């Protein structure tokens, strides 16, 4: 199954993923339309800057999801079909336990409703919006094995260059 994977070396911090994420979750699903919407659409991915790296962070849809365990109302659940972690806003009581246990800070607050909001992996799209929007292909939608194979290939190239003193 494909996962959203990040190539940290390619992220320029342009925040195009943030905009695209908000737009795909808007009423009109268009940038220009969403600017004029009363209720501004909210992004589910955050480009954060650490020590010399920028990184688009979103829900990792963990296999062993602490947020699901921590949710007392059953709002946070694993979708059987897509195996993604999803929120049912109708059941969310705004206790923020999931926010506290998420190691990535990938869950935030939907202020008006006082419920949580997080990446839904764009399950209705073929490719998540953040992946489509990334101009440098830092965000990929890829099988884990394919991602690690690419990494191995890259390692070998770097290894050869190091051997050749380049």
């Amino acid at each position, binding site marked *: 199954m494909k996962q959203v994977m990040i190539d940290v070396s390619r992220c320029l911090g*342009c*925040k*195009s993923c*943030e*905009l*695209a994420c*908000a*737009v795909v979750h808007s009423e009109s699903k268009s*940038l*220009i339309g*969403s*600017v*004029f919407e009363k209720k*501004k*659409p*909210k*992004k589910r991915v955050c480009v954060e800057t650490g020590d010399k790296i920028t990184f688009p962070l979103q829900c990792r849809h963990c296999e062993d999801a602490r947020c699901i365990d921590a949710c007392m109302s059953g709002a946070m659940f694993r979708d059987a079909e897509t195996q993604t972690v999803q929120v049912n806003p109708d059941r969310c009581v705004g206790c923020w336990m999931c926010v506290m246990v998420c190691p990535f800070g990938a869950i935030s607050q939907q202020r008006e409703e006082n419920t949580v909001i997080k990446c839904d992996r764009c399950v209705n799209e073929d490719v998540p919006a953040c992946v*489509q*929007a990334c*101009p440098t292909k830092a965000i990929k939608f890829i099988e884990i094995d394919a991602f690690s194979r690419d990494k191995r290939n890259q390692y070998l190239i770097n290894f050869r260059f190091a051997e050749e003193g380049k």
Partner: protein
Amino acid sequence: MKFDDITIDLASQQMLVKAEQEGIETVWDRLKAQQPQCGFGLLGICCRNCNMGPCRIDPFGDGPEKGVCGAAADTIVARNLLRAIAAGAAAHSDHGRDIVNTLYAAAKGDTADYTIKDEAKLKALANEFGIAAAGRGNNEIALDLATAILEEFGSTKGKLQFINRVPEKRRQLWEKLDILPRGIDREIVECLHRTHIGVDNDYINLVLHGLRTSLGDGWGGSHIATEISDVLFGVPKPVRGSSNLGVLKEDHVNIILHGHEPTLSDMIVYAARDEQILAEAAKLGAKGINVCGICCTGNEILMRHGVPVAGNFLQQELAIITGAVEAMIVDVQCIMPALTQVAGCYHTRIISTSPKAKFPGAEHIPFDEHKAMETAKKIVLTAVENFKNRRPEKVNIPDEKMAYMAGFSVEAILEALGGSLNPLLDAVKSGAIKGIAAVVGCNNPKYKHDYGHITFVRELIKNDILVVGTGCAMIACAKQGLLLPEAAREAGDGLRAVCESLGVPPVLHMGSCVDISRILTVAAAMANALGVDISDLPLAGAAPEWMSEKAVSIGAYVVSSGIYTILGTVPPVLGSPNVVQLLTQGAEDVVGAVFAVETDPVAAAGLALQHIQKKRTALGL
């Protein structure tokens, strides 16, 4: 047909198929590769004006609402808009300056190849500028006129001369708003000053200066470019020619002039008639030399010589892909850097001529107005010599070719009307012509090529709106036969009768993009004749497929002049609801006109008709 989703032009569709077969990348491929384009850029909310940045504002209020300096979306959007206007006004006005420099050199006798072609126009302009003409030679008058006009760029008079063509009411309005342009260059420089970090941060103040700068273009730089070109190269008169890629000839040396200024291109038209060079072409097996135009250089020479026009902005690469172009000679503006890469796949030579515009991979033959004919002949000869390198197996010229009638300068329109504007005003008053719409501007690959222009124009003439226009919009109309008197059949009964009685098309081609000044002159004269302001007239403007910064300046001066203007592609200002409100609503109470944005050309025509009807009602028509 394949590619009918990106262009309505059959010749272009055919060349896109050829491009695909031959693996040639075009502007549409590059647009695709650029997807998705940056949302911050599209909304106008990124700022790179200082090195504390780059900064961007979160349009959804979820992230930063201010840049590092504290500028919010309103300031950033307005500053970016101002810089676009400055660049557009600079391009038009610097073009104007070059033409005046040529007049100055000609008047001083420094360049034998340029002479005063239109004495009547020279004297009329001298009169306008208060320069004595009686008993003086043309060169003497021209020298004074050129000096006076060069003064307009950094004017110390505090006001531009051509502003006097504007109705009194409007001039007073500009004075009251403090947006009378004081000097062409001065306003452009001030744009850059104001948008520097920490200067003008008030979006209304910024936009108002944008209007002032644009007026320095419309009623300054562009006016100068038009009027002095008429003096040097002749006032256009109705002329016929042909358009689209089918104008290229398989058995001729094909030269395409592309860019914007008439100075060199006019000379090349003559150089290509040189007997020695023609003999050279014959020796290589060519039946002749076929000089064609693209973009506004094309418009300049078609207006004055009826030179065939090979296409508009989005056809510049496609012309080379025919494999039949020996040389594309370029000067300034709207020339894609990609041309040299496309030309590299054929025998075509790209020859750059302006010291201001060099292209990696092109041959540079610097144009010097002091040796104009010599340079022109050298360039034409270079093209002729390249005929032998043509690869017949790569040649495929589309059949599409359409006749046009163009050359409608203000003088030509007056002549067609029998010497005065009255017949036109009477037709407007009677309702035979409901109003006049100016359709101008570029192509933009984000938009189906020519579709916006043609659909919009057809809707208008059907509803008895006389269309005037310039630039790539008019080349689009030429290709569809809308610039022929016979096109009056597509017009409503009222407009059709007027066109048929005068023998003119329902769409009047008035020239290159700087020649929008001709449209302004007509609008001002109409208002003066009726004793009203321009904003009272049943007029509308539109740029259905615009893309360049020049178009931003044009839109701004047309609106500031009191004409409602519809844009067919969305400008990068939506990141600031306040700036949007000002441009689309607030401006009505300031300059008596607003912008509208409508990407559907049928709906856009509806907006124009509605506006024109509103103005007619207010005038009691």
